[in-house]
């Protein structure tokens, strides 16, 4: 059956925050990772069944980390319906970069739905007990963020599917 929707979702974040691992957790990977290092992007597909919306294909554009050595090609971002900004909670600078990546999204795809994934939560000691950890982290770094934030773990799979489902649903229901 053909999908009712096909959505382009971009994934942004610093080097080694776990973007590729998050994708690998849930999708069948058909292409070699060398695309990431050669042209700076690799696309994978995730099929979802969203209640009330039907079958939806998410085309996940894993964009190589933006740092002083690499610049993101704006063309890869353009046309995306949604974006996920990934940060590694064990590395302070990657959380600080959320604001920079949010600016990039705002500049090229202002209408896109955006979510933040605070990844590698399995490495945090109090992640199980502290329900406000995500907000606390965002506040700690003075990030005024009114969009969804989720604590994720590519290792355990925690919240990864939810992150994608919520983002896709918010795009379709707009």
């Amino acid at each position: 059956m053909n999908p009712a929707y096909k959505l382009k979702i971009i994934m942004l974040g610093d080097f080694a925050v776990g973007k590729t691992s998050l994708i690998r957790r849930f999708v069948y990977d058909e292409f070699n990772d060398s695309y990431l290092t050669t042209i700076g992007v690799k696309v994978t597909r995730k099929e979802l069944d969203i209640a009330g919306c039907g079958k939806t294909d998410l085309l996940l554009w894993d964009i190589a980390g933006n740092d002083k050595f690499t610049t993101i090609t704006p063309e890869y971002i353009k046309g995306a319906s949604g974006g996920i900004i990934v940060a590694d909670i064990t590395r302070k600078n990657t959380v600080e970069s959320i604001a920079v990546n949010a600016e990039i999204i705002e500049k090229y795809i202002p209408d896109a739905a955006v979510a933040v994934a605070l990844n590698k939560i399995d490495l945090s000691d109090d992640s199980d007990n502290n329900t406000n950890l995500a907000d606390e982290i965002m506040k700690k770094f003075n990030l005024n963020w009114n969009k969804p934030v989720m604590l994720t773990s590519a290792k355990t799979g925690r919240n990864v599917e939810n992150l994608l489902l919520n983002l896709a649903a918010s795009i379709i229901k707009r």
Partner: protein
Amino acid sequence: MKDYIRKDISIIQKSIKLESPILRHYIRKHNLSGLDAVILGVLIDLTGQRKTDIRTHYNVIASHAGVSDMEAYHSINSLHRYRIIDTKPVGNFIHISFTDIGETIEEIDLAEQNAKKIKKLESDVSYLKSKKFVPSDELFDIMMPLIGRIIRKKLSEALKDIVNYINSRIESLTSFTLWKYRFQSYRTGIPLAEIVFRNSIPYLIEEVLLIDRKTSVLLAAASWQEHAGTDRDIVAAMLSAVKDFIKTSFNKEKNYLNEISFGDSKILIFESVYFYSAVLIYGHPEEDFFNSLDSFINSIHVKFRQKLKKFKGNMDGLEPMNILISDFINKTNAGIERRPVETSYTRLKVIAAVCAAVIAVTIIIFSIGEIRDYRLEKIILKNIENSLPAYAHDIDADVDGEILTLTGSVNSPQTGDIITKTASAFPEIKNIVNKTVTSDFRMVEKFTEDMSAFENKFKDLELLFIKQELEKIVIEFPSGVSAIGENQTFQIKKIFEILKGYPDIDVDIIAFNDTTGGLDINRRLANDRMNAIKNNLSGLGIDKKKIHITDFNPDVINADHRYRDYKNTRGIILFARRSGN
């Protein structure tokens, strides 16, 4: 180069270009300079259109071409580097021959004739263009109905020539495919050439993807062959990414990637307002194809533009696009055999079965042949043995069909002749290859004996040397002790160093003792010491089987005057001997 020479060259070049399609072919293929083209033209002329080799001087070619000797020299070297000609200095001359061209002369001639026909039309168009009464930009539209007919006529004439040419070529061919085409021609009434032409030159659309320009999302797709291959959605997205990557990396804002080639296939990319089309094509499409692709893309644009303008991922209403693409592919590929995966697999199985059968039959035929050859070899050798004394030859025979190859030695050329004569009496053998070597058997025998005697003498000397060296070493033990200490270890290592290079030498271990303690105790101690030495030597790498422990007998040492100093001491001596003695 001076101007007047340049002018001359240009004139010669023009005249040669017009007259020789082969030269024209070379000039185009290698993008030859004017000077090289002139020299090549002269060479083609001097060799009778490449048919013969020539032996000449550089100055002869230079004078024919109207250039300096040095220019002729450089040009000839340059043509040699292009592998158009092959040059070899022969004394004061230079030998020049033409290397083979991949394309046949007929093909080049035909292309030339067609080019000339088109050239004629070009001059007509130029003439009309020069007339001022029709604006040049409108000329094409006005003239199209008239010129179009002429072009069609000329093209059909050229096509007819090609068909005739192909016909003459293929009639001489024999292959399974050709028979298949012949049958098809007989069944359908279509000329054989046309069928071959259709099947050998066509292009084929393998797949078409329509991709949204904004989102890079795959809008619709269809393939010629159904296959469970790579995910088209991902391919579409990655193709967009590669396209964007090239656009940004090479800073080509206005130009975009429009073709990716791999082998005989290519992806042609056509941009439209809202989407772009990626067409995977096998072969080389003609102008007609691009025209029909244009109309197809246009029809998609017209039908779906409202939907595509607002496209943000909702696939609703885009389904009919897939059917339109399929129709377009089917229409373009009409007449080309579709090969579904299952059929290919079945066909593969049939081919495999046929191959297996062919291999089996070949093996059987080959085996039968081999058995026959083997039997014949035996009979021939038997006949040779019967016709000659045994000492006169030492040969081997190898029969392969009708060919007999003889190898080995014979004692004289006459013996060789007798062997050939004997073998040629067999009617099965049509050709004898005699590779036997004539040698004097008695001389060889004597030489072998001498060598053997020398070898034995050498071995005796070797043994004598080892014996002397070993017998110099006496491994002494303290009273009542059979364990190996530092002193003994050192001596054992010396023995090992002597023995390790001679694996065909055996050693006997002989023990001696003082008379203290009585014979029984001394025998036991002697045995323990001999075993300890044997084990140590074996541990170092000497084969245990080469080390022999002897019965304790003090008289052996007592009788040997070399060891008189060791009377009333305790120790071990090793004696070497040749293996088996």
